[in-house]
């Protein structure tokens, strides 16, 4: 059976879809790849020329590092994999400058990038609130790297899945106990006893309260081992669609590398 993807919601930053006829290992592979194996750009080194704000240099650098930057996966490579051998060429490094004087709030949009394709994904992330006479002048250097190295390089946010719930009602006596017990309020009494209609089944959290409250054991809750309800969010460095594609590509690359290694043995 071929794998099927049924998209429920898709926007710039978040997606929800059903992946069916796939193994748990594959679903988990996609989840893990989108969290840790899709490289993104993030500020890594900060050269501080002047900082008289209330934050320490290190705190300021941490805040800068966590700001997601828009990334084109084709254009950049992680420093360790770059052909320049760690010398920091334009393919693995982007420099952003920030120069501000108080009183004002400094936002991520104030970062001036040396490469117009690389910008802060959200322009309104507050970096530091400068008071009268306070000053910040710095150069931030962004590198590409993987999410497993540091969370700032994590492209996917809150990526997860659950198995497709299967709730069946047999010989229901319409007592209504399960209707009241369900925390998601998705069970109602239909013409042939209790039922869950349409897409409401996706809201089921597999808590099995309906099964435990049923006195005649008419309710059985199980899950489809081959079908997964995925939720994914992107931090803004890629659109969610690109993120999923990139996650798939990294799995493919890793698998082919494994094949090469095995063949050379």
């Amino acid at each position, binding site marked *: 059976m071929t794998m099927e993807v049924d998209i429920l919601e898709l926007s710039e930053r978040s997606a929800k879809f059903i992946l069916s006829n796939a193994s748990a290992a594959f679903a988990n592979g996609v989840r893990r790849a989108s969290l840790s194996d899709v490289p993104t750009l993030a500020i890594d080194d900060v050269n501080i020329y002047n900082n*008289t704000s*209330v934050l320490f240099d290190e705190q300021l650098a941490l*805040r800068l590092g*966590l*700001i997601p930057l828009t990334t084109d996966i084709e254009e950049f490579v992680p420093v360790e994999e770059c052909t320049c051998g760690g010398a920091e060429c334009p393919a693995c490094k982007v420099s952003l400058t920030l120069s501000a004087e108080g009183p004002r709030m400094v936002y991520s949009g104030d970062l001036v990038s040396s490469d117009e394709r690389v910008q802060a994904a959200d322009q*309104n*992330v*507050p970096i530091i609130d400068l008071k009268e006479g306070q000053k910040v002048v710095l150069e931030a250097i962004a590198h590409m790297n993987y999410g497993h190295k540091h969370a700032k390089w994590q492209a996917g946010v*809150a990526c997860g899945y659950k198995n497709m719930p299967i709730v069946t009602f047999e010989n229901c006596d319409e007592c209504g106990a399960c209707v009241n017990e369900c925390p998601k309020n998705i069970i109602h009494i239909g013409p042939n006893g209790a039922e869950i209609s349409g897409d409401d089944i996706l809201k089921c959290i597999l808590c099995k309260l309906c099964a435990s409250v049923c006195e005649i054991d008419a309710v059985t809750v199980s899950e489809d081992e081959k079908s997964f309800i995925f939720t994914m969010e992107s*931090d803004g460095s890629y659109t969610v669609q690109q993120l999923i594609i990139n996650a798939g590509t990294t799995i493919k690359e890793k698998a082919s590398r494994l094949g090469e290694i095995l063949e050379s043995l």
Partner: protein
Amino acid sequence: MLPVRCFSCGKVVSNVWEEYKQRVAEGEDPAAVLDDLGVVRYCCRRMILSHVELVDTLAPYQ
């Protein structure tokens, strides 16, 4: 300053802080404001709900 990202899931939360603060000061229900701003998970909500703004307290000390 509010941490840039949620500690648990990594979602950027600090960009909603100013609007949240302003709308709550105007008397809106914090829960409704957070829902409206797209801060839906409880890990992200606690980042904002439990935040104490210290910049103005620290500012006079240089």
